[in-house]
C-alpha cells in the first residue's frame, strides 16, 4: 500500500516536473526564435516609447517699460484619429465653416483608412483660436448625445475629431514697431525662424530648435518630459508710447506731402539707445505672410537700416565738424561764397544758384551753402583728412545695430575706381555719397554726445533663465573732440534760430539741427523734381537727451520740396510731444530747478 502510494506520488511529481521543464524549454525556445526577436523589437518600437516633438517656448519681446510686444498665445491643431472616425462627412462639413479648411483635402484626410503603424492620425487644420475649439466641442457633445459612440451611421457624429493645443507667436501691438521687431514664421512649426528686426538678429537666443524626445509608455520607466528652457526674452530700448507717436507723425507727414515713404529715428545720443524707429510700409506682424505683397520688389523691410540714399545737406554737419576739428577752419574764418564753385570744369551751385558774398562758418551752415562746404573740403580739408573723418563718423561702414538686414553703401575714396576729384566737392554737401538713416543719425549723435559716437542698439537687456543681463553701451569711435562737438552744437543751434530750419524750433527748448534737401539720383542723372527732405536735430543744447532724424522720401514737389519745409515741421511736432514723454522740462524750468540745488541725477517729474 505504502509502496503503491509512493510510486503514484513520484509519478505525479515526475510528470509535473517534466511539464514544468517542457514549459520552460518551450518559453526559452520561443523567446530565441528570429520571429520573436523581430516581433519584440517592433513592439518595443511601437508601444514602449512615444515620439514627441517638443517646441521650446519662444522668448518674449518687451519695450523698455515691460509692455509685451511679442509673446505666445495658445492655438489648436485639429485632426482626426482615423481609428475612431465614424462619419467623415460630418467632420468635414463641420470644419468647412472655418475659412482655412479646404473641403476636398479635409475629406481626403478624414476618409483615410486606418492602418496600424501607418495611417493613424491626419491633420486637417491648424492655428485655430480657443473660441473656435469651444464651438467645435459643443457641437461634438451635442452629436454624441444624439448618436452615442457614433453607432448609427445615418446620424451625424464627430467621433475621431480631436484637437491639440500649442503655442503660436503673437504680436499684441499688430503693426507697432513692426520694422524693429521683424517676425517669426510661426506657420512653419518645424522650421520656423525669425525674419528681419530683432526676431532675426536674436533668433538663436529667442528660441532653441524643436527637440524630438521619446516618452516611455511604460509607467515604470516614467521620465521627466523635457521642459526645455524657453528662449531668452528681450527688453528693447524702444518706448511704446514714443514709437506710437512717431509712427503716427510719420504716417501723417507721408500722407500730407504725398511722399513715397519716410523714416524717423529717435535715439539717446549718450548711450546709443534707439527710443523709436519708424519707417513705411509697416505690416501687421500677425499676418506676416502678406509682407511679400506689401513690400514690392526691392522695398526694404526697415528703411532706417536697409535703404541707402544721398542725404544732402544734413551731411554738411560732418564736413564742418571735420574741418573745425582738424584745426584747418576756425569759426570766425570767412569764405567768399560765389554763385558757383568750379572744380576742374565741374560746376557746383548753391541751392538757390545765387552768390552769397563773404560768409563765416555759421553763415555757411545757416544758409546751407554748397559752394562754401565744397571749398572747405577741397581747399582746406583735402581728400585724406576728409575721408579719414568720414570713416571715423562711420560713413561706408555698418553701425552693427542689433537688427537683421542692415545695408551700407561703400564710401568711394581716392584710389577707388569709382572715385573722381569732383567726388570730394560733392561729398562735402552730401551728394555722391550714400548712407542709411541709422548711419546718419549715429554720425550726428557724436556731435550731440561730446564727440563720442555710441553704437546704436535696440536691445536694452536680455532675460535668460530668470536673470536680467543689461546691455553695455559701446563707443563706436570718437571722430571729433568734445570741444568741436560743443562748438558744432552751438553753431547748429544758432543756425536754426536764425536760419532756414526755424520751423523745427520748439518753444522753451534750445535745439541744434540741420536741414537737408537732396536731389534724387536716377539712371539719367539727378531728378530736380524729386527730393529727399531730411532733418537731424538734438536737444536740449546744454544737455542733449534725444536726437531725432527725419527723412521724408520724395515728397510731392507741389506740396513741399525742401527739408526746411517738409522735414523740419515734422521734427518740431515730434519734439513737442517727445519732451513731455521723456519728462524734459523747458530749459528755464530745468535750469532753475538745478539752480535751486537739485543735481542732474535727481529725478524731475
Amino acid at each position: 500500500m505504502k509502496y503503491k502510494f509512493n510510486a503514484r506520488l513520484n509519478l505525479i511529481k515526475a510528470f509535473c516536473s517534466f511539464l514544468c521543464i517542457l514549459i520552460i524549454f518551450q518559453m526559452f525556445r520561443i523567446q530565441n526564435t528570429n520571429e520573436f526577436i523581430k516581433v519584440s523589437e517592433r513592439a518595443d518600437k511601437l508601444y514602449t516609447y512615444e515620439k514627441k516633438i517638443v517646441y521650446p517656448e519662444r522668448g518674449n519681446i518687451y519695450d523698455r517699460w515691460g509692455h509685451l510686444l511679442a509673446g505666445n498665445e495658445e492655438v489648436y491643431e485639429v485632426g482626426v484619429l482615423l481609428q475612431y472616425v465614424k462619419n467623415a462627412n460630418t467632420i468635414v462639413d463641420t470644419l468647412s465653416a472655418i475659412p482655412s479648411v479646404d473641403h476636398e483635402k479635409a475629406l481626403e484626410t478624414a476618409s483615410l483608412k486606418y492602418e496600424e503603424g501607418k495611417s493613424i492620425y491626419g491633420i486637417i487644420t491648424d492655428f485655430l483660436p480657443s473660441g473656435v475649439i469651444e464651438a467645435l466641442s459643443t457641437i461634438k457633445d451635442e452629436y454624441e448625445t444624439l448618436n452615442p459612440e457614433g453607432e448609427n451611421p445615418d446620424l451625424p457624429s464627430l467621433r475621431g475629431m480631436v484637437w491639440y493645443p500649442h503655442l503660436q507667436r503673437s504680436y499684441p501691438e499688430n503693426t507697432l514697431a513692426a520694422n524693429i521687431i521683424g517676425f517669426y514664421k510661426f506657420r512653419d512649426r518645424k522650421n520656423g525662424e525669425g525674419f528681419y528686426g530683432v526676431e532675426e538678429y536674436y533668433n538663436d537666443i529667442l528660441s532653441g530648435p524643436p527637440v524630438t524626445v521619446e516618452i516611455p509608455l511604460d509607467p515604470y520607466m516614467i521620465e521627466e518630459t523635457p521642459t526645455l528652457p524657453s528662449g531668452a526674452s528681450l527688453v528693447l530700448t524702444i518706448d511704446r508710447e514714443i514709437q506710437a507717436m512717431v509712427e503716427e507723425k510719420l504716417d501723417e507727414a507721408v500722407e500730407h506731402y504725398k511722399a513715397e515713404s519716410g523714416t524717423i529715428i529717435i535715439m539717446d545720443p549718450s548711450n546709443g539707445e534707439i527710443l523709436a524707429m519708424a519707417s513705411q510700409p509697416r505690416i501687421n506682424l500677425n499676418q506676416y505672410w502678406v509682407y511679400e505683397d506689401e513690400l514690392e520688389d526691392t522695398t526694404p523691410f526697415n528703411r532706417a537700416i536697409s535703404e541707402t540714399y544721398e542725404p544732402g545737406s544734413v551731411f554738411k554737419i560732418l564736413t564742418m565738424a571735420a574741418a573745425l576739428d582738424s584745426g584747418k577752419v576756425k569759426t570766425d574764418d570767412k569764405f567768399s561764397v560765389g554763385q558757383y564753385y568750379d572744380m576742374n570744369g565741374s560746376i557746383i551751385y548753391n541751392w538757390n544758384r545765387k552768390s552769397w558774398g563773404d560768409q563765416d562758418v555759421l553763415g555757411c551752415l545757416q544758409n546751407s551753402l554748397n559752394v562754401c562746404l565744397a571749398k572747405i573740403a577741397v581747399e582746406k580739408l583735402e581728400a585724406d583728412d576728409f575721408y579719414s573723418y568720414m570713416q571715423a563718423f562711420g560713413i561706408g561702414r555698418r553701425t552693427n545695430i542689433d537688427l537683421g538686414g542692415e545695408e551700407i553703401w561703400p564710401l568711394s575714396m581716392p584710389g577707388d575706381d569709382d572715385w573722381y576729384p569732383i567726388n570730394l566737392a560733392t561729398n562735402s554737401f552730401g551728394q555722391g555719397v550714400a548712407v542709411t538713416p541709422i548711419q546718419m543719425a549715429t554720425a550726428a549723435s557724436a556731435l550731440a554726445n561730446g564727440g563720442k559716437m555710441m553704437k546704436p542698439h535696440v536691445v536694452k537687456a536680455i532675460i535668460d533663465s530668470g536673470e536680467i543681463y543689461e546691455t553695455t553701451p559701446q563707443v563706436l569711435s570718437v571722430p571729433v573732440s568734445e570741444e568741436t562737438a560743443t562748438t558744432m552744437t552751438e553753431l547748429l543751434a544758432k543756425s536754426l534760430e536764425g536760419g532756414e530750419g526755424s520751423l523745427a524750433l520748439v518753444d522753451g527748448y534750445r535745439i541744434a539741427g540741420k536741414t537737408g534737401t537732396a536731389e534724387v539720383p536716377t539712371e539719367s542723372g539727378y531728378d530736380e523734381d524729386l527730393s529727399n527732405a531730411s532733418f537731424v536735430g538734438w536737444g536740449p543744447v546744454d544737455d542733449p537727451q534725444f536726437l531725432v532724424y527725419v527723412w521724408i522720401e520724395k515728397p510731392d514737389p507741389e506740396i513741399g520740396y525742401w527739408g526746411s519745409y517738409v522735414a523740419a515741421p515734422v521734427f518740431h511736432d515730434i519734439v513737442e510731444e517727445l519732451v513731455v514723454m521723456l519728462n524734459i522740462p523747458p530749459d528755464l524750468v530745468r535750469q532753475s530747478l538745478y539752480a535751486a540745488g537739485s543735481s542732474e541725477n535727481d529725478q524731475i517729474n
Partner: protein
Amino acid sequence: MAKKLIQAYKQTPRRKQIQKLGLYVLPVITIGTVFTLYLIFSAQAAAAGLEIRAYLDTQEELQRTIANENTQLAWLLSNTNMTNRAEKLGFSQITTDNIFYMVLPSYPGRTLELTSPAPGTDSEGDVVLNSAYQESLADFLGNLLFSTPNEEVEP
C-alpha cells in the same frame, strides 16, 4: 498504550500525506506571497508613474496657459486699446504748458517691471521614479545576490 497511540498517529498514512503535501505546498505559498507583494508594489509604482505623467502634462498645460494669459493681457493693454480707453474716459494729451515740474529726490523714476517666463529645466531623459520601483524581482534578487558592494563611500 499512549505510546502506541502516538506512534499510530504519527504513522497514519493520511498524516504522512499531509506532511508531504505541506512540504510541497509551502514553497508554492512562499512564491505566491512574494509574487503578490511584487504585484502590489508594481501596481503602486505604475500608479505613481501615471500620476507623475498626469502632473507633467498639467505642468505643460499650465506653462502654455500662463504664456497665453500674458499675451491676452497684452492684447487688452495694447497701445491702441489704452489710447482708445483714455480718450473715451475724456483724457487728452498733456502739453508742456500744463505741466508743473518738481524735483523728487527720493523718487527713483519710472522703472522696468515685468515678470519673465519661469526658467525651464535641462532635464531631458531624467528618470522620475526611484530606481527601486523600476527593477523586476529577478533584477532585485540578482542585485542582492551577485552584485559587488560599491567600494566608493560617499563622504
